[in-house]
């Protein structure tokens, strides 16, 4: 075996493969600095806005950050991996319940519950992942919906978690209302920056390429040596940890959680919309998407009650109707989201 030529040959093959991958995923119409600048502008803007806005706006912006953290985590498996998860509430909910339980039973404060909340969500995600990630993606998707309902039933029938009455989560501080709001805001802000960083690093790592390979053609990825189940499970677990941590802040912010509201498909719908509108499988997408979705929902919340149809008031459920229609429209026509409109994908998928 000739030691001089062999490594070189392997290297060049790898180079070609990597260049191909880059041509596919980094082909662009805009210069490369645009997306990072948008990301920094959104995050920087949010960082400054927290200090200067009034309380009402602060609550809205907290929701934006809450969605950002969960959506960045969701995007790993749902966007890059193509395994849609309609159970975003499972992980945020288990984190919220873990945090509220610890606060009640042991008097833990918010900071201390971040890790256990993330850990609880990871445990739940392992249960979910082991049962379903060996199946095709649509069984995973349907099972996440079913699992959301299961989580709700389990919590409802567990007296230790408050049953259907729910749990209170108090934060024992001497801060005033604004101070508390800022505390939640900047905790979530920190996690949003962290989540974005994680998403950026994963997008540009072999792990990210492996996930995208799974989404393109899973059997082919497996044949090429991608350990598909383990890669998918890792993506799910990282996403779940972020969701769980966001859930713990949510529990303290809202102060009271109950099963039906915590484990509902509404959060799943919002998170899916955030990623789909922003752009699946892009690290900037969830940032743009969560701003748009929260602004849209706020606008609908103000606008819909004022609307009249045949002289009758329109029920609040019309909000969700609009969101559902929006999801269908994006699924049919704008599949790669807003980021996808500006970033061209050069490589084309060839179907044999």
């Amino acid at each position, binding site marked *: 075996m000739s030691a001089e030529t062999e490594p070189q040959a392997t290297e060049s093959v790898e180079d070609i493969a990597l260049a191909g991958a880059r041509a596919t995923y980094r082909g662009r119409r805009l210069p490369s600095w645009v997306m990072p600048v948008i990301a920094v502008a959104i995050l920087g803007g949010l960082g400054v806005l927290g200090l200067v806005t009034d309380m009402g706006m602060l609550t809205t912006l907290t929701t934006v950050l809450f969605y950002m953290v969960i959506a960045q985590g969701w995007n790993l498996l749902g966007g890059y991996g*193509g*395994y*849609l998860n*309609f159970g975003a509430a499972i992980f945020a909910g288990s984190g919220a319940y873990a945090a509220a339980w610890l606060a009640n039973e042991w008097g833990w404060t918010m900071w201390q519950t971040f890790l256990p909340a993330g850990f609880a969500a990871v445990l739940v995600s392992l249960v979910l992942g082991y*049962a*379903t990630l*060996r*199946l*095709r*993606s*649509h*069984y995973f*998707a*349907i*099972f996440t*919906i*079913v699992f*959301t*309902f*299961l989580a709700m*039933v*389990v919590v*409802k*029938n567990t007296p230790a978690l408050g049953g259907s009455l729910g749990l209170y989560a108090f934060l024992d501080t001497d801060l005033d209302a604004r101070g508390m709001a800022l505390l939640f805001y900047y905790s979530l802000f920190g996690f949003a920056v962290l989540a974005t960083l994680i998403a950026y690093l994963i997008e540009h790592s072999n792990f990210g390429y492996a996930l995208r390979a799974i*989404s393109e053609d899973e059997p082919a990825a497996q044949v090429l040596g991608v350990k598909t189940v383990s890669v998918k499970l890792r993506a799910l677990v990282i996403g779940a940890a972020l969701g769980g941590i966001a859930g713990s802040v949510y529990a303290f912010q809202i102060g009271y959680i109950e099963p039906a509201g915590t484990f509902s*498909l509404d959060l799943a*719908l919002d998170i*899916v919309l955030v990623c*789909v509108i922003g752009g*699946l499988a892009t690290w900037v997408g969830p940032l743009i998407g969560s701003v748009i979705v929260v602004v849209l929902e706020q606008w609908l919340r103000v606008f819909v009650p004022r609307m009249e149809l045949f002289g009758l008031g*329109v*029920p609040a*459920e*019309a909000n*969700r*109707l609009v*969101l*559902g*229609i*929006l*999801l*269908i429209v*994006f*699924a*049919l026509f704008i*599949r790669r989201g807003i980021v996808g409109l500006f970033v061209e994908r050069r490589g084309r998928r060839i179907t044999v």
Partner: protein
Amino acid sequence: MSLRDLTQALINGSLLGGVYGGVAMGLSLVLGVLRIVNLAHSAVLIFGALVYWELVNGLGLDPLLMIVPIAVGGYLLGLVVHRGLTQYLARESDSTVLLGFFGLMVVIESIAIMVWTTDTRTVNIGYLSQVLRFGDIGVPLARIVAAAITLAVLVALHLFLTRTLTGAAIRGMAENPDVATLVGIEVGTLSRRIFAVGIGLAAFGGTVLSLVQSFNPQEHVRWLAWAFLVVILGGLGSAMRTLLAGVFVGIFETVVGLLVPFQYTYLALYGLLAVALLVRNEGLGSVRLRTI
């Protein structure tokens, strides 16, 4: 648990299970033949049940006759959905299809809640509400009727799929749509009709379900879970195996209900679902799966 209780549970369970077969058939057909996961299945089911409730309770029409217009209405709705949504998704990736149908589920559910609110409703079954007595075993008439109607529909579907030329064409499509096109099967037209039949069956499932259970538009996901469980256990597309799986789930639920408090029967059923997923390693992807 006495022998009488057990017999009663077995009879009631198998009747309930027959209805579950009807609840799952539409999902199974659309998944088996068109390979589309109809996430909106349970939303359509509850929507059908709500319209049925409106006709029977609101207008006082006959509960048995009204099953027909609901099923036909479901078929027509299926044609509309196919034209507006499904046909564009036919050759798309799994995730695009899932997004589209998740959106559809949200849309149908929102409309149902906007019109009928989130109240739990029970269909006024009138003359079906008596309980038949066989010795010391009592069986609600509505259950017998609902199970009998489902049985008739599923047997008819089974005969259609196995004994007619169109049925053979559908099985061919399920096997391999490309080859089906090559041998001259009109895959496009057939797909549209099968999808519409699947939605019609979902609406039909809603009517027979509402004969035996009360329902609530907010909790329709529960029926998605049940239908999914039946489909996982029974495999895809076969009417008879779907019926058998439904009966198994019904008996399991009723017998477990004898042993543990009511709220834990849910958990036992979900446990069954998890076991079924783990044991069927490739889920429904095994060889037998695509045969009808």
